[in-house]
């Protein structure tokens, strides 16, 4: 807080793997930076890091989060500045260690230091509910719960919401951890055929406010293959637009919600019903 900033710590989490946490962390982090915020994205998936690839920074990793925790490197040495956006940084995870290398005190120290340097600290949580995931959420002010519209993903998200309400520092102080639901890999035609849970069903089960609906798209895959967040690589594509809208909602703007490939904002009503 030395610069008088009020940094916000976000955790991008889901419980289930493969739902789009890392893709969303990269896309939202880049969108926030594009909108002028100073952002660091932190990879907590020690041992299975991916965020460096999503940002195309894998060839510039020297030191990582574990090095900083162990005092081998200074935070400044481990932070990697993005080549496209000068106010976007990555703090990579270690690929050679495992989650046991994360210590509670070490993570607390790193987050506290990041808070003095950035406006937004976006933590990419590993899948699961074990050490890596609980430490990633530990210091969060707000959580983005990434969910696919299918039952197993929704139940895992429900489980994670319960943990956010009990295992985070804020919850332990008796405060409320803000939660936002980001529905990813939404197939409009499958939804129309009733092959997926509807947005309404997901909202009814999880009862937290909706941040955005990201349509399934080739652009997402293409962006990750070239190592660029979709919000930079194809900024006008439907998923990128959805991520940008979600980012602006995160910043507090009131933007009507659209279900992808449906012309009317029929979810205005649902979105207006803020569960918090």
């Amino acid at each position, binding site marked *: 807080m030395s610069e008088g900033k009020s940094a916000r710590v976000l955790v991008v989490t889901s419980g289930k793997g493969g739902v789009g946490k890392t893709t969303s962390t990269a896309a939202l982090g880049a969108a926030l930076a594009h909108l002028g915020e100073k952002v660091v994205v932190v990879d907590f998936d020690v041992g299975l890091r991916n965020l460096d690839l999503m940002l195309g920074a894998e060839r510039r990793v020297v030191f990582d989060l574990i090095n900083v925790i162990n005092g081998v490197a200074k935070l400044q040495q481990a932070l990697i500045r993005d080549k496209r956006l000068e106010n976007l940084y990555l703090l990579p995870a270690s690929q050679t260690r495992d989650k046991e290398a994360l210590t509670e005190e070490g993570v607390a120290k790193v987050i506290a230091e990041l808070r003095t340097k950035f406006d937004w600290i976006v933590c990419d949580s590993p899948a699961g*509910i074990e050490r890596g995931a609980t430490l990633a959420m530990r210091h969060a002010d707000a959580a983005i719960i990434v969910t696919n519209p299918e*039952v197993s993903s929704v*139940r*895992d998200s*429900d*489980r994670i*919401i*319960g*943990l956010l*309400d*009990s295992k985070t520092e804020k*919850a*332990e102080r*008796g*405060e*409320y*951890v803000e939660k936002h639901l980001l529905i990813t890999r939404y197939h409009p035609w499958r939804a129309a055929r009733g092959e997926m849970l509807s947005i309404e069903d997901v909202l*009814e*089960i999880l*009862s937290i406010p909706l941040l955005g609906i990201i349509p399934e798209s080739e652009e997402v895959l293409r962006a990750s293959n070239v190592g660029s967040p979709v919000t930079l690589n194809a900024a006008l594509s439907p998923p990128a637009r959805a991520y940008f809208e979600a980012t602006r909602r995160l910043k507090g703007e009131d933007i009507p919600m659209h279900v992808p490939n449906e012309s009317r904002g029929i979810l205005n009503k649902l979105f207006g019903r803020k569960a*918090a």
Partner: protein
Amino acid sequence: MSSLTCQRQSLTFRARSYTAFVFTLQPPIEDWLAALDAMLERSKGFFAGHPIALDLSATRLSPVEIAELVSELEVRNIRLLGIEGINPAAAHPRLPPILRGGRGQDIEVPEPVAAAPAPAPAPAAAPAAKKQEVASLMIDSPVRSGQSVVNIDGDITVLGSVGSGAEIIAGGSIHIYGTLRGLAMAGAGGNARARIFCHRFEGELLAIGSHYKTADEIEDSLRRGPTQAWLDGNTLKISAMN
């Protein structure tokens, strides 16, 4: 909202089952202790570090005799996790807790007529204090998947929904004003009059006492509607509430 979170934190706790050795005491006690000594002679430290419960259902011991037995076991380095098979009224702060094996059977053990010298007055005071604690538990936020809410001493009321994979376990009745998608077990202490009520049923399992039905065994017509479950003799009945 912060107060909600705070409240739930203090109310939610886990029920966890452990595996423990259960010693069933066969009277007379002296012979039983001798047999135990013989066994310990053969393999010293056999029980060291293991959780051990004592089943006293085959005996009628006074609280003082139980205390003596417990100290006899402590001399042998056997520390008890709890005692089962005795009247809950015999509970005493200095004795290990009374276990009910999840069934919570009420055991009527008549007070020994030829009471042991000077029965401690404390056991009588303890149950009286306990009676006042019996209360219903109110949860005013959703119960999420993987969370477990337990109130063995009374009812549980949930104002929100109960997620798939969450569980509500009450000694008394359960009232859910949202959607039940998880598991609800009422009458966990053996209370056959306990019931389960939910505003919308999409649950995985309903149980009262030891009688239960899984979602598969429950008529589809009841799903998504207001539902109640109760015990009719030995049959778990489930019906719509309209």
